[in-house]
């Protein structure tokens, strides 16, 4: 059984091409079922890629079928087989083929594709191992931990100050899109957007309503400042909106101030106040840059992990060839053993039941011990040296010739 991958991604095609072959989950499941036709197929379709994985006896035919399904000739496709295809999927699941390395969404998308696909033993094993590789990379490297945008960096820094953000009160100063983006990041991590203030009261009320907070008058935020744990400021005011004199004493309670405005809203002297931590856009951008370079560093480590997983898959795939040969070998040995015992039945009539069981056990053990080393060697060789050993074993033991050979033997008698 060969593994075939045909697909396109952001590395090969711009969005206007990708959108022509993009499918929703139901569409991907339907295509997988149609392509499988009694075999195995999975369609992975996300905003960055559409890929078809097929396990088929005839890889050329599988490639043609998958290519036709993805409008071959009209768009550029990549084609990979066996270990290379497995490595590709493992890299995808680990987020190594994503625009931002280590992004977390892809693992869920791979799982959804797997669950809606038409899987048999090969694709089942492939996708389970891909999910395992993706989780392992995220658990053992820091590839997915660091933020990849200014708003997520702000939220991650707030967590570095407060730990869990559940119960943390956030004050939004300014009710524009930038404030809203930062608020979403903070709220997604459990923070409560308790108050919104803006020069335009209606906008403050609208944004506060979206997050379940309350709108407060711009000139009356001292009380909210005292209660807040996080302040996000993003107004178009040309001067400082928050200055050191306006900040209440914290008495050991940390205050994390995020200034997303240009020109800046928060007087730099606020950073010098005890228990106040001030980050402006440049600081956050520096954190994002460092975090992305960190992700690339971690990606290098992750590559060796997924390569190892791909090697394991290759070994497993090779071992599939050897399974029927081993089963035939065991069957042949058992038929010889039981046949010879049956022939000797007349001479063993005088044995008691217990002695008979001893003879059965003894002959079984002799056969098992004789077969043990050849079977172990066959498995090892299948993983490292391909099918040559399996063919040799079939030839030496006459495996697969049973049906032809058996009548011949009988006729000679």
């Amino acid at each position, binding site marked *: 059984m060969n593994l075939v991958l045909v697909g396109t991604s952001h590395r090969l095609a711009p969005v206007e091409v990708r959108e022509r072959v993009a499918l929703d989950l139901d569409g991907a499941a339907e295509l997988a079922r149609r392509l499988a036709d009694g075999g195995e197929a999975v369609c992975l379709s996300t905003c960055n890629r559409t890929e078809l994985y097929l396990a088929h006896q005839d890889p050329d035919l599988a490639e043609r079928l998958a290519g036709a399904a993805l409008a071959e000739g009209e768009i550029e496709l990549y084609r990979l087989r066996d270990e290379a295809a497995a490595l590709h999927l493992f890299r995808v699941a680990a987020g190594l083929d994503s625009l931002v390395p280590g992004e977390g969404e892809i693992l869920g998308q791979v799982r959804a594709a797997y669950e809606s696909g038409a899987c048999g033993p090969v694709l089942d094993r492939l996708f389970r191992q891909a999910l395992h590789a993706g989780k392992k990379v995220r658990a053992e*490297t820091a590839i997915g*931990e*660091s*933020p990849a945008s200014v708003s997520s960096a702000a939220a991650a820094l707030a967590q570095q*100050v407060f730990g869990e953000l559940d119960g943390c009160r956030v004050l939004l100063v300014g009710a524009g899109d930038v404030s809203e983006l930062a608020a979403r990041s903070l709220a997604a991590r459990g923070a409560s957007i308790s108050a919104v203030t803006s020069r335009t009261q209606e906008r403050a009320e609208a944004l506060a309503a979206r997050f379940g907070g309350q709108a407060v008058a711009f000139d009356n935020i001292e009380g909210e400042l005292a209660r807040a744990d996080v302040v996000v400021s993003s107004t178009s005011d040309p001067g400082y909106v928050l200055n050191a004199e306006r900040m209440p004493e914290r008495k050991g309670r940390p205050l994390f101030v995020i200034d997303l405005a240009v020109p800046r809203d928060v007087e730099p002297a606020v950073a010098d106040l005890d228990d106040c931590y*001030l980050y402006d856009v440049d600081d956050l951008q520096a954190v994002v840059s460092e975090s992305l370079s960190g992700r690339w560093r971690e990606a290098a480590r992750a590559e060796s992990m997924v390569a190892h997983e791909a090697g394991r898959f290759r070994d497993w795939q090779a071992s599939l060839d050897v399974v029927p040969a081993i089963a035939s070998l065991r069957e042949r040995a058992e038929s010889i053993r039981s046949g010879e015992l049956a022939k000797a039945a007349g001479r063993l009539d005088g044995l008691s039941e217990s002695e008979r069981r001893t003879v059965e056990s003894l002959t079984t053990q002799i056969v098992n011990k004789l077969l043990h080393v050849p079977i172990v060697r066959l498995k090892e060789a299948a993983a490292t040296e391909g099918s040559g050993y399996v063919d040799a074993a079939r030839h030496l033991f006459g495996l697969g010739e049973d049906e032809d050979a058996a009548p011949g033997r009988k006729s000679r008698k």
Partner: protein
Amino acid sequence: MAELLFWPALLAYGEAAFAYAGDARHPGSLGRLGTWGVRVGWLVQTALLVAQAARADGFPWDTWAGSLNLFVWLVVGAYLIWGCRPRYRLLGLVVMPLAALLLAVSYAAGGVAGSGKSGYSTLFLVLHVGLLLAGFAGLTLAAALAALYLWQERQLKRRSSTVLRFRAPSLVTLESLVARTVAFSLPVLTLGMAAGFARLRHGSDLDPLIVLTVLTWAVYGAFLALRFGVGWRGRRAAYTALIGFALVIALQLSLQTGHFA
């Protein structure tokens, strides 16, 4: 036998220290190696202490070097409670080199070899030395947490772009852990001191070591009163915990010339 167990324990602690240093640069599998170093080292040191106890006639750690050996075991044991979690691995950078160094000092000063017959009753020493050292171990851990807090606070204040790289615990978590560790350790220290005072003969002089111990107790007592009474937090609280620890170090050093001399 006991001496033979010393080397693997020291090796494991040293390995953990190096692994944690490597983990700070590249978080991942090195951190797990460090954690295993701590676990293995602590188990081997436990076996070392058991071997010493089995061989000794009385309390086996009634010398300064012996008490240092026991102290290291208590510190690493306290660290094991939560230090093996990935977010607290940075603590290992402080605790494990210290543990390895002190264990080596203990060995050099004869703390790993067996001691002769103790001049004190075993029960008294278990209560007095054991509780005092357990208290000191907790306060050492609190100091390591306070140091980590100050480092993290400085990173955030300076708006360091690498602040997220080290995956350290949050400021609030560290601050709370310092307070809770001191709150747990001080009563243990108090009981150890009470056992010591109970042995003081009526009218005997207070030696400087006792005064230093009482001063240490007062610093940590003030820390707890301010922290839980008036909500004293942040940098000042962390510095106070470190000042208290400086007194603990002074006490440990004075023990050699005082009580154990």
